[in-house]
């Protein structure tokens, strides 16, 4: 059954089985592979995208229940906060392998959009759902603070 999704501002038709999570629609059907698969149970955050600006786990989000919500992926994240995060990430080489970083960046971007000057605790709370086995957590903390400064 064809479903129309609004992804990165563009209406997009997809024909995936009922209940297929948004993650696999993005990756396998639309070839938008920036959003990563990590666990399928909403525990690791690698698949984080924005739904109407809020960070959500696309691995547990049935694509056919999203109506006309605005979906933003790493490929389409282009707000000033998203670009500030990218600049900070590049300036300090925040990522290591980078696999979880699409999700980290989407979560961090949503944080800065709702809280432009987060405290350490705010950062820990917002980012705690995003795992990184390379353990770039300290770099991410520093990166978010740097991005906040760039936005100020």
């Amino acid at each position: 059954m064809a479903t129309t999704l609004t992804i990165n501002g563009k209406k997009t038709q997809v024909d995936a089985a009922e209940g297929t999570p948004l993650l696999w629609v993005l990756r396998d059907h639309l070839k938008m592979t920036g959003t990563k698969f990590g666990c399928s149970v909403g525990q690791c955050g690698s698949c984080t995208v924005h739904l109407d600006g809020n960070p959500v786990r696309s691995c547990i989000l049935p694509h056919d229940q999203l109506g006309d919500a605005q979906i933003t992926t790493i490929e389409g994240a282009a707000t000033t906060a998203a670009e500030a995060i990218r600049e900070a990430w590049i300036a300090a080489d925040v990522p290591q392998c980078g696999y979880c970083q699409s999700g980290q960046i989407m979560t961090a971007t949503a944080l800065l959009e709702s809280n432009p000057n987060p405290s350490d605790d705010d950062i820990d709370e917002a980012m705690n759902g995003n795992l990184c086995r390379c353990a770039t957590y300290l770099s991410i903390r520093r990166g978010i603070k740097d991005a906040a400064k760039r936005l100020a």
Partner: protein
Amino acid sequence: MFQKHFAPPPAASTALDPSSPLSRRGFMKTSGVFVLAVSLVGRLQAQEKDVAGALTQVAGGDATPSLWISIEPDGTVKITCHRSEMGQQTWTAMGQIVADELDADWQDVKIIQALGHPKYGDQNTDGSRSVRYNFHRLRVAGAAMRSMLEAAAAAHWGIAASECHANLGQVTRDGSRDRLSYGELAEAAGKLEVPAEADVQLKSRDQWRYIGKPIPSLTVPKIVRGQGTFGIDVDRPNMVHAVVARPPQVFGEIETVDDSQAKAVKGVLQTVRLPKPAAPALFQPLGGIAVVATDTWAAISGRKKLAITWNKGPNAGYNSDTYREQLEATARQPGKVERNRGDAPTAISNSKRTVTAEYYVPNLSHSQMEPVNATAEWNGDKLEVWACVQDPQNTRGVLAGFFEISPENITVNATWLGGAFGRKSKPDFAVEAAFISREVGRPVKVTWTREDDLQHGYYHAVSAQRFEAALAENGDCTALLNRVVYPSIGSTFAPGFNTPANWELGLGASDIPFNTPNLRTEAGEAEAHVRIGWLRSVTNIQQVFALYSFVAEMAHAAGRDPKDYLLDLIGEPRLIDPKTEGADYPNYDASLDDYPIDTGRLAHVGKTAAKMAGWGRKLPKGHGLGIAVHRSFVCYVATVIEVKVSPDGTLSIPGIWLAVDAGTIVNTRHAVAQMEGGTIFGLSNALYGEITAKDGAIEQANFPDWRLMRMAESPEALEVEIVDSTERPGGLGEPATPVAAPALANAIFAATGKRIRSLPILGPTGTKLDLG
């Protein structure tokens, strides 16, 4: 005017460019040139055999410039990286080494990921060896190319080469404004003879532009935009997706299967039975049945509908609780002597003061964020694979062996690796993909779900360690006995391999650097019931946890400061050779002449970290400092951890101070990143990590049954000091991991008086230390 003379070359590369992995095949077809080496312009038609040049005998392997460097007419410098990029920034490091000696402009550098092929020499990207194995040869390759460019310029100008100097992508003529770009010189340079190593002039250290500098990563600008190709991102025309239902027990097999419901799922195309592996496990697929579908989710959904009864096979008796008792019982019996100085058992039995302790570390999982996966495609009897493998060359060999075809018919493209930590140097998943693809007759991507990755891994060995020591009246250690018991990685590769291999013992057991007059290392037998594999820092994990916990236990028994006691045990600066005391010690595959065990360097990092931490300062109530030092992967690391434990047992880590001496360092920024990541990797394992088996099947299914450290639990601060050194480069990817656990356990003891001897400290659900 030079554009005409230096005509544009035909296509130069067959290596996979991860930025455009799909364009390569079409590109090759249209170019009509089959080039196996990334070559200098002018040497493009070089076939593999021609790669052997004047520089094949350089330490580390072939340094022939055309194997590593290609210069385009526009000046782009393509540097082949034959190591796999998995976050350690090997693209950047290999690029820095070549570009420095080549005197290229960093802006012109583009990395080409090498295919798996023996011509590159060792491609096994583990053991923290990429820089150590390639530093010299890549310098030689870069410098040889630089001298060829200078010679080409000299010929063009009709002057002596000594009057020409390479500088940032150009060759200048002394005493004039004349200059020729590398792009303009490339074709002519490529026609010159490659100089002999003795004629290659390497830069002096003070001339380095890139080596030793915090050069930014070449991968991060793509990563932040969701670009770059990990294994799981590979796509091929006409590709289908597969997941596999594998036997819960190693060497189990399907008894009966009904796939009719699975095939009824929308998108499911067919199922494929995989062959049951014969022991030893090697890198064979585990067997079971694949569900092939039009997308990954359909394959996963179809797999849920399979009705399978399993024959549990020979490992169904493996239960972690009873296995632990066996390991501990073995550790209490004399084992095989692996190193001996004096007579530790007699000294201990005759001593009035003894200390004894036993330590336990469970099975652990790599759980890299990108689960293993691979894509395979057959074209007649030719096989091409794209996969997140740490060793594409060995993957090619394994595929050749499994399918009994010539390696020349197999192409293995290494993608980016979304974490690896040793799991991805075991290419069973690539064999799976190739097998299923052959059966289906289409390109197939096999994706392992998180459950697959956790339950069908190559696990870090579960272990028991026992230490006994004799203390003199003044508290000095006069005899030390360590006995280690764990299933060997060798069991995965050879039947009956039931005692630790020499190189496993050499990672923290047979290389103890202490000056105690009596010292003995023993090993006991243990049989494996799951696939045992290497995980970041390998047996250092358990052996170093036990060793440096025990040092602090001895210090406590002696009533001495644990840092001072540790430094006393290490003693005066000297070189140690465990081989003189009966150890079959491989020294991380390095010679002890090149990479001695230097207690002076070990003590120095210990003193440095202690100073950074303010060792001895007055701490707030509930705080404690712990220290551990260790040489691993020919690199010296010391870590001091401060913990804070509140009265209810809540644990936090206000600070960590780490000193590292890895000899010459190529990239200081990425060295620090490895120290941070490696430390937290060790902390995560120590606090939370435990894989258990029941009736031979792994019990943990997904996060959070298997728990990783999260940001809120991470250290509040971690300070790294790099010891300035001109010694040969050592490893950086692993050496921070082993010391984290004992430093943490020692800090907890200092804060609370509670001694941790069994890991994990908190486990999958724990939030507080049990202070009872």
